[in-house]
């Protein structure tokens, strides 16, 4: 019986054990050979990925209803582990170049990913909170990993303060839901509310507080203020990891908790809030991105805007379209994740030491000098905008359709208009890269180039054949 429980979370358990192992082995690896640590980390991620894929098709709960192993968890864990591999690839040469090559990066990265995996498995609010903390605490340190640099430390401190503040809200929300139902497991809460023993008033307060807490994590407006500073100050590989994996983890929490708990009457009270948040996030993210001169800040605002699109896909979750809402959110997450990692790889490749070379103007001439990177960047910018023949197009098409079918035509309209606005600043990057003269130096190293080209190829190829991903996301069903 106990073994069965352990087998259910084997990918997670293996990753945690591996993190400790990396930490220990790193002690014996000389300073000049830290790439060995990176390779060991990648092996651990691959191992966990294999174990995760072996769980495909399962649907069961373990540890007395604390965790659920289902299609949803498997798909998201694949996303998290792939993000981890991408973060290792981005950091492989970057850390050495910046003189911050230390083994702790990899151990902390693995701990953070295990928190995210736990979030995907979570079917109890205690676990949701713990997963949130486990994924955030290593990230506070990772954001400050380029430590002698003051920007990095400042970014780390800002991220910590906002994160601690947000977890206060999440906790207060969970406490209210516990007060309403005397339960914390999702199934128990649903049962208590369904049988009428629960208290609807406390329940709705709890829902609102959870929305605020998770809003901070996914960087939705008006809880987005921290994002640009944190993204700019953190080491670029960490920023890339945050912009994809942390956002995915935040949406995992939203999907897990909200689709299970807040249906029916509560949804009727909640959807205007979600609607407003999605619309504001799309508008503010895109409009503020226009005036940015620093590429990291530009991509930070762009990531806020994309959080808005993801929220738009999520809004109809309480209608009969629940399956579509979950599927289109996941589809867009995959499209956004691939595109975003690719764009960050280009940024890492062109970044100079000491955090220089990050103004958009510094990219002038890069398109001609490095045709492959330039081509990849074209693909990413078009995919971010949602131009056909890229995965971003399918993602947007799918989520607009979900929004319209769910009756949220106004929201889809806002999404469409802001997408047009976004074309301006995405294309400006390309204009600078191709039309202006300049002599940038790409020194990202082989892994970063491979990542950029591979994600670009994936964005195009999967757009030509979107069938498999559509199939995948529609099968990612939650155990309820």
């Amino acid at each position: 019986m106990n073994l069965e429980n352990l087998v259910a979370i084997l990918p997670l358990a293996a990753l945690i054990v591996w993190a400790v192992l990396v930490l220990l082995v790193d002690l014996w690896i000389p300073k000049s050979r830290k790439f060995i640590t990176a390779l060991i980390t990648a092996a651990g991620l691959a191992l966990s990925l294999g174990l995760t894929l072996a769980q495909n098709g399962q649907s069961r709960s373990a540890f007395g209803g604390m965790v659920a192993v289902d299609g949803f968890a498997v798909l998201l864990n694949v996303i998290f582990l792939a993000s981890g591999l991408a973060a290792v690839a981005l950091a492989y040469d970057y850390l050495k170049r910046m003189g911050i090559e230390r083994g702790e990066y990899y151990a902390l990265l693995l701990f953070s990913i295990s928190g995210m995996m736990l979030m995907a498995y979570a079917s109890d609010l205690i676990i949701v909170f713990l997963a949130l903390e486990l994924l955030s605490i290593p990230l506070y340190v990772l954001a400050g990993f380029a430590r002698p640099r003051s920007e990095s430390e400042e970014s780390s401190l800002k991220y910590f303060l906002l994160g601690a503040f947000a977890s206060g809200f999440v906790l207060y929300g969970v406490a209210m839901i516990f007060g309403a139902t005397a339960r914390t497991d999702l199934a128990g809460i649903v049962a208590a509310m369904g049988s009428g023993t629960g208290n609807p008033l406390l329940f709705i307060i709890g829902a609102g507080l959870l929305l605020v807490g998770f809003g901070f994590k996914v960087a939705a407006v008006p809880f987005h203020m921290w994002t640009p500073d944190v993204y700019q100050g953190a080491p670029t590989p960490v920023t890339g990891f945050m912009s994809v994996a942390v956002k995915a983890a935040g949406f995992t929490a939203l999907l897990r908790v909200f689709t299970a708990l807040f249906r029916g009457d509560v949804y009727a009270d909640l959807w205007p809030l979600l609607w407003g948040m999605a619309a504001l996030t799309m508008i503010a993210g895109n409009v503020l991105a226009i005036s940015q001169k620093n590429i990291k800040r530009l991509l930070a605002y762009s990531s806020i805007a994309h959080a808005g699109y993801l929220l738009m896909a999520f809004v109809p979750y309480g209608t009969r379209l629940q399956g579509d809402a979950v599927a289109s959110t996941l589809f867009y997450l995959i499209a956004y994740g691939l595109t975003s990692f690719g764009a960050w790889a280009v940024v890492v490749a062109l970044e100079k030491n000491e955090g220089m070379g990050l103004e958009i103007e510094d990219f002038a001439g890069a398109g001609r000098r490095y045709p492959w990177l330039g081509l990849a960047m074209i693909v990413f910018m078009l995919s971010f905008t949602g131009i056909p023949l890229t995965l971003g197009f399918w993602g947007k098409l799918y989520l607009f359709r979900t929004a319209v079918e769910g009756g949220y035509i106004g929201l889809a309209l806002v999404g469409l208009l802001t997408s047009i606005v976004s074309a301006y600043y995405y294309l400006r990057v390309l204009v600078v890269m191709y039309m202006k003269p300049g002599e940038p130096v790409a020194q990202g190293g082989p892994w970063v180039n491979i990542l950029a080209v591979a994600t670009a190829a994936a964005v195009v190829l999967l757009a030509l054949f979107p069938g498999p991903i559509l199939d995948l996301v529609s099968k990612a069903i939650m155990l309820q």
Partner: protein
Amino acid sequence: MIPLPWLLVFAAALFCIGLFGVLARKNLVAILMGVELMLNAVNVNLIAFWRYFSAAGEDSTRAWTFVAVVLVAAAAEAAVGLALIISVYRRRKTVVADELNLMKG
């Protein structure tokens, strides 16, 4: 017995005082103290709900587990947070939130 609303209002007040501390204080350590007050308010809520709704039930240890988890999380956050604050102080000789403004958009 103490009426439940008294406890809940007390916890809400404690939470909001902490909230004010986080939003209004300049000093980073003081902001952290505000966060600690907020987490304490949550624990008061949890223990109150436990006492009124599930103290004698078969699931009586659930709230306790949660309170213990909150305590552990608070300790972990305080450790990392204070380490970060002291590290910033060593280099910049400041612990004032407003002076952390190297980046502007």
